[in-house]
């Protein structure tokens, strides 16, 4: 009788174990994170926010039409249609226009989807190199809120337009003097060779 009860007990234990193994949740190591991200990288070249029905495309212009252009993304080609309300942000040209887009341009497009692709609300051309530049040298001429000229280590000179918004950072003083070694942060004005200084950093002597 003792052996019989032992056998029944073993049987019950085995049954429960088998049940647990069969109905246990399988591991999910690649479950996507829950919650709405505040930032969603779209490294595949295109992103869709289905909730707001808005699209964004990042890629290279591979085709130009009368009022359309094709953006090649890592996910595939997307046909973008422009309207008279489409705005263009082109680094070297202001205001930008559809005619300023060129094959091979890197672009970011924001808009709304249509049957063929995307209706562009804004198009931005990504510059191949920055429009901002830093220049290091010694101040050889300075007129507050007007202009600054510096001479670099090779003897080259550069003159910058200064405005009231130009930030001056001098750890040991409040301004700029001739002879100071500085870094000038400047932006090239679209369509010209004028550089406007946005900031000047005076280096300690």
């Amino acid at each position, binding site marked *: 009788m003792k*052996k*019989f009860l032992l*056998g*029944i007990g*073993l*049987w019950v234990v*085995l049954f429960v*174990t*088998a049940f647990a*193994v*069969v109905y*246990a949740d*399988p*591991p999910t*190591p*690649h479950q996507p994170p829950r919650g709405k991200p*505040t*930032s*969603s*990288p*779209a*490294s*595949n*070249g295109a*992103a869709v*926010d289905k909730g*707001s029905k*808005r699209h*964004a495309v*990042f890629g290279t212009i591979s085709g130009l039409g009368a009022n359309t252009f094709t953006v090649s993304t890592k996910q595939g080609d997307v046909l973008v249609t422009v309207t008279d309300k489409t*705005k263009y*942000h082109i*680094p070297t040209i202001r205001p930008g226009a559809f005619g300023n887009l060129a094959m091979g341009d890197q672009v*970011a*497009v*924001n808009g709304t989807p249509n049957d063929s692709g995307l209706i562009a*609300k*804004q*198009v*931005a051309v*990504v*510059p191949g*190199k*920055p429009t*901002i*530049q*830093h*220049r*290091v*040298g010694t101040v050889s001429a300075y007129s507050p809120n007007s202009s600054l000229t510096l001479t*670099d280590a*090779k003897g080259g000179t550069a003159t910058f337009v200064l405005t009231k918004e130009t*930030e001056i950072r001098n750890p040991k003083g409040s301004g700029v003097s001739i002879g100071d*070694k500085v*870094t000038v*942060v*400047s932006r090239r004005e679209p369509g010209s060779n004028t550089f406007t200084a*946005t900031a000047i*950093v005076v*280096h300690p002597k």
Partner: protein
Amino acid sequence: MRGILFFVSVLLVSCSGLNPVGLATDTVVPPASTIAPSPQAAARTVTAIPPAEKTSPVPQATLTSAQALRPTETASPARALVLQVKTPADESIVDTPVITVTGTTIPGAVVSVDGTLAAVDSKGEFQSAIALEEGPNVIEVVASDDSGNQVYSILTVIYQP
């Protein structure tokens, strides 16, 4: 009684093969996608511009330029200028009008984010808050040292409120 014991033995053997998938998943090696480098890191572009090239459109060297650094007047060896932008991710979509650009460079470097000076601490970490316009925004992050070398990273972020 022997019959019961025999039945239990058979049950034991059969149970060992009940759910081979469920038992094996504990030792599954993660697929390559979970251990591959992040696409954001791969998309990030950092380009060095030696001082001599600033006024002429010559080819730019990718990444940093230890060789481009000229000897300084101080006795300490020059550190290669580097720039790593941590946030935001390139080609990202955000729903807030202001974002903070963060990253690292060498201590003492001058960093600008869209032309505005960023605060750089003694470890070379920097941050700068910038306001976004609705739609695509191109963010230029430039770092330079006092020898005139500079590196940059250009990011694209779309603001969709």
